[in-house]
């Protein structure tokens, strides 16, 4: 019996096709927008967290006037004897502005003993790792492409230090790693120091690896005591930054979309909760031919379910296709920024089934329930009176 009512509900919707399509279309658009923002945000956060595990357990910076500044590499000696500290490495990195690019590139020095990058471990698309002292560099595929460089070409990066050498490109990163390397130049520590005009003996920060990462909090406290004014960043706390950074961006985009979403939902509510004269007449006829109030309510509930469910399904599909199949045109700049060098790597879905079900239920539940009360009112009025009016 319920299936017959379901079929009747579909036929009733087909009789009011324009209204059902307008209602379903608006709802599908709202679902697609919300789902797309969530898909993109979760995907970006997951990408950042993917590289998180390989980061140093603790990074120590020096603050002057509340801003990070360079730190003396000699400070490392104060930290090596802290229990659980396995190694302290001064790192040299920073930014160089490229006028031809109208943007910054990130320069990262390679300390001695750093793990190698190669074609074999899948990091490089072509070429090899830099040889210390040979004035070589590896660049992101996007940056090399923008500068029109091929392995073997040399580039003199603009710097205030006349002693800085031009660097020879000896390798490029795989384009699938663009999200991390689009603006990256890796060279040896001495070249990075020269390019960044970093005084000898200074480092950008100190990275610490611990024998037991669970002791990071205790080690961080000790570092604070030994280097007063240092800013100690624990790896585990950085996960929170990613949640905040990407969540906040998603919040801005969703916040900007609130008026449009509200307008659509008010329209949907108005359409779903109002029972027009034709529908009242239809309900009266159904009651007159023997349908019970319960049957009428089921029919109205099924109508809402059919519109809501198909709109939700369509919205989820559109949102997913927008982000992962089409590459998020329009939405990507709003959420990831306007960098000159855009990482082109495809995004990987990180959203799980529970979140998809959550979006669906958040739309379907209220939408279906909204339609019951007006249908109840119409179904409990006298059919003769309704037909006469």
């Amino acid at each position, binding site marked *: 019996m319920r299936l*017959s009512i*379901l*079929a009747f509900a579909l*036929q009733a919707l087909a009789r009011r096709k324009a209204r059902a399509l307008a209602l379903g279309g608006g709802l599908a658009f709202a679902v697609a927008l919300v789902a797309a923002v969530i898909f993109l945000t979760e995907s970006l956060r997951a*990408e*950042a967290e*993917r*590289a*998180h595990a*390989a980061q140093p357990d603790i*990074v120590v910076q020096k603050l002057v006037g*509340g801003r*990070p500044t360079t730190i003396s590499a000699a400070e490392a000696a104060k930290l090596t004897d802290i229990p659980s500290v396995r190694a302290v490495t001064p790192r040299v*990195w920073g*930014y160089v502005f490229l006028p031809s690019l109208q*943007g910054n590139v*990130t320069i*990262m020095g*390679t300390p001695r003993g750093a*793990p190698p*990058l190669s074609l074999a471990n*899948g*990091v490089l698309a072509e070429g090899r790792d830099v040889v210390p002292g040979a004035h070589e560099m590896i660049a*992101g595929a996007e940056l090399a492409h923008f500068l029109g460089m091929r392995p073997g070409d040399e580039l003199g990066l603009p710097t205030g230090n006349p002693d800085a050498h031009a660097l020879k490109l000896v390798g490029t990163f795989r384009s*699938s*790693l663009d*999200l*991390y*390397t689009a*603006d*990256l130049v890796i060279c040896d520590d001495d070249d990075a120091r020269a390019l960044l005009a970093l005084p000898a003996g200074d480092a950008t920060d100190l990275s610490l690896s611990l024998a037991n990462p669970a002791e990071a909090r205790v080690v961080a406290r000790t570092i604070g005591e030994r280097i007063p004014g240092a800013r100690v*960043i624990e790896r585990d706390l*950085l996960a*929170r*930054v990613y949640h*905040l*950074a990407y969540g*906040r*961006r998603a919040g801005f*985009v969703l916040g*900007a979309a609130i008026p449009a979403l509200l307008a659509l939902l008010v329209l949907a509510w108005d359409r779903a909760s109002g029972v027009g004269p034709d529908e009242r007449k239809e309900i009266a006829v159904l009651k007159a031919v023997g349908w019970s109030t319960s049957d009428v309510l089921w029919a109205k509930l099924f109508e809402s*379910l*059919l519109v809501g*469910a*198909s709109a939700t*399904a369509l919205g*989820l599909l559109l949102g*997913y296709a927008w982000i*992962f199949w089409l590459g998020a045109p329009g939405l990507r*700049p*709003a*959420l*990831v*920024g*306007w960098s000159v060098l855009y990482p082109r790597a*495809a995004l990987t879905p*990180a959203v799980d089934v529970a979140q*998809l079900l959550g979006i*669906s239920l958040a739309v*379907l539940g209220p939408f279906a329930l909204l339609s019951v009360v007006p249908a109840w009112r119409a179904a409990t009025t006298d059919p003769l009176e309704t037909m006469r009016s």
Partner: protein
Amino acid sequence: MTTQRRTTLAAVVLVVSPVLVIGGLGLDAHARRAAKERDAASIDALARRLPSSDLALSGGARWLRTVSLEEPGAAFADGPALPDPDPAGAAMAPPVEAWSR
């Protein structure tokens, strides 16, 4: 198949369509994640040579290239829903002329 049966079947399919779509998208997402897993070793090797695991989404001039290390106060003084003092993204990009000046 009678018209009534076809209508009933279509209605049932429409009602369960979110479940079908979620299942399909779940499968596609699973396949994409599995493909990405093949990059895990290279990401791990690369990450050891990066300043941070932040994504290359915006230039360092805006203090947001390595947001986790550079944003003043990150990762400690930040809070949920706090406005970004210098957002890298929003609904509208600045005009190209202003950006390239």
